[in-house]
């Protein structure tokens, strides 16, 4: 019962609609990459972390750009809560963003669809299995892989004595 009360109290203390203050530091206009980049300090007392979505909306209104041009990453909350620091980029146009942003961030902003691949281990196993597959009898690969076909991939020396168990 006491635990339930504490959880309710914490939820009451955190106000999801409390005002959030944004402060920018080290503002640089990067002409080479056609973007504006800065460090963003978010002050959110009595509130857990603010989502990147909400921050992007606020920044878009502040800098009069489209919400999709704002890229946020690297947010870390300071000890004790109430303040988080991260990085923000605002691109001039979508073409520049597609050209300069790394692929994972483009996937995050939804400009590039995520390619679903099977796991790396599975891909490697399949590739290695494909190396041993029986090729077409008229192909050159068949002739060249005759060793593999009939003797197997494991090379066994004729004079090797049988190994003793470890």
């Amino acid at each position, binding site marked *: 019962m006491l635990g339930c009360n504490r959880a309710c109290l914490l939820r009451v203390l955190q106000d999801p609609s409390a005002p959030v203050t944004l402060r920018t*530091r*080290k503002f640089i206009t990067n002409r080479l990459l056609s973007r504006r*980049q800065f*460090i963003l300090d978010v002050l959110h007392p009595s509130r857990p972390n603010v989502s990147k979505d909400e921050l992007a909306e606020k920044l878009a209104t502040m800098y009069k750009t489209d919400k999709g041009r704002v890229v946020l990453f*690297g947010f*870390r909350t300071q000890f*004790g809560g109430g303040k988080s620091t991260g*990085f923000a980029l605002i691109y001039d146009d979508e073409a520049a963003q597609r050209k300069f942003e790394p692929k994972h961030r483009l996937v995050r902003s939804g400009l590039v669809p995520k390619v679903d691949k099977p796991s790396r281990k599975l891909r490697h196993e399949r590739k290695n299995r494909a190396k041993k597959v029986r090729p077409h009898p008229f192909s050159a690969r068949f002739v060249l892989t005759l060793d593999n076909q009939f003797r197997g991939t494991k090379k066994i020396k004729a004079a090797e004595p049988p190994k003793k168990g470890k």
Partner: protein
Amino acid sequence: MTDAESICSALDEMTASMASTRELIQSLKAKQASSDAMDTRDGISLLSLKHHLILAYLQSLVLLSARRAVGDSMEDRTPPSQPFSTADRSIRGSKVGDLVDSMIEGRIVLEKVKVLESRMRYQIEKLVRVAEDSSKPVAEDPLAFRPNPSNLVNNEQGSEGESDEGSDDNGKQDGIYRPPKLAAMPYVETTTDKRSKRQPIPKALSSLVHQDPSRPHVESTSGLGFTPALASDRAREIQRMTEFEEDNFTRVMMKKKDARRRRRDEEDLALGGSGMSQGRRRGRGLEDEFEDVLRSVGR
């Protein structure tokens, strides 16, 4: 009239005190010439440095006030060309500005000397105690010697191993396999070998960097803890990491263990601690106090 009287009485006082000081100095000089008690060549040079500095400071002060009384300006100076750190720097000129410069130098050096003296306080007090009260001979007083931590090291070499004589007479019998030395192998020096064998910087010198009183006083915003958190190496490392991150617009890629350790150290620093969670396998309570002693074990 009263002003003139007061000036005359002040001047008379000055001459009387100067005469008495001259007598005192002459008696001290006689004492120094006759006995060896005043020979400070084997003493602590830091303290004699202090004496010379204060003497020079007082002389410059007197000369400065005399020149000011005459009406000279404080701006003319002939500064020496080499910086302070060169050993054979030429002597300054004797203009008023030079006096001010030498006084400033003397004050800064005296501040640093004060910091070093505070580190040597225990030694100095012990020497003074020995000099004043020499009832007990030095060899019998157990507190007269400095700690010898190498005595704590367990050096039992010949206690075992007299039993097995017939079994294996060649070499040591400690059960460790030593491979036979057949061919010369190159010695590859790992980075830790050089690092551990280097002479550590004495704490007195490294404390000058952050305890220096001529620098502006650094306070932490949390208000907890009396020493600035930047005193510990880990705090400086973490600060350097955050600076790098903000300058280069990235987050440092680290392993999960390192990231967790960094987070823990940042929280510790925010609460006023020293931020060293992994200091020599924790439990570092007394190590800072005995760091000088423990560091000298290997020397």
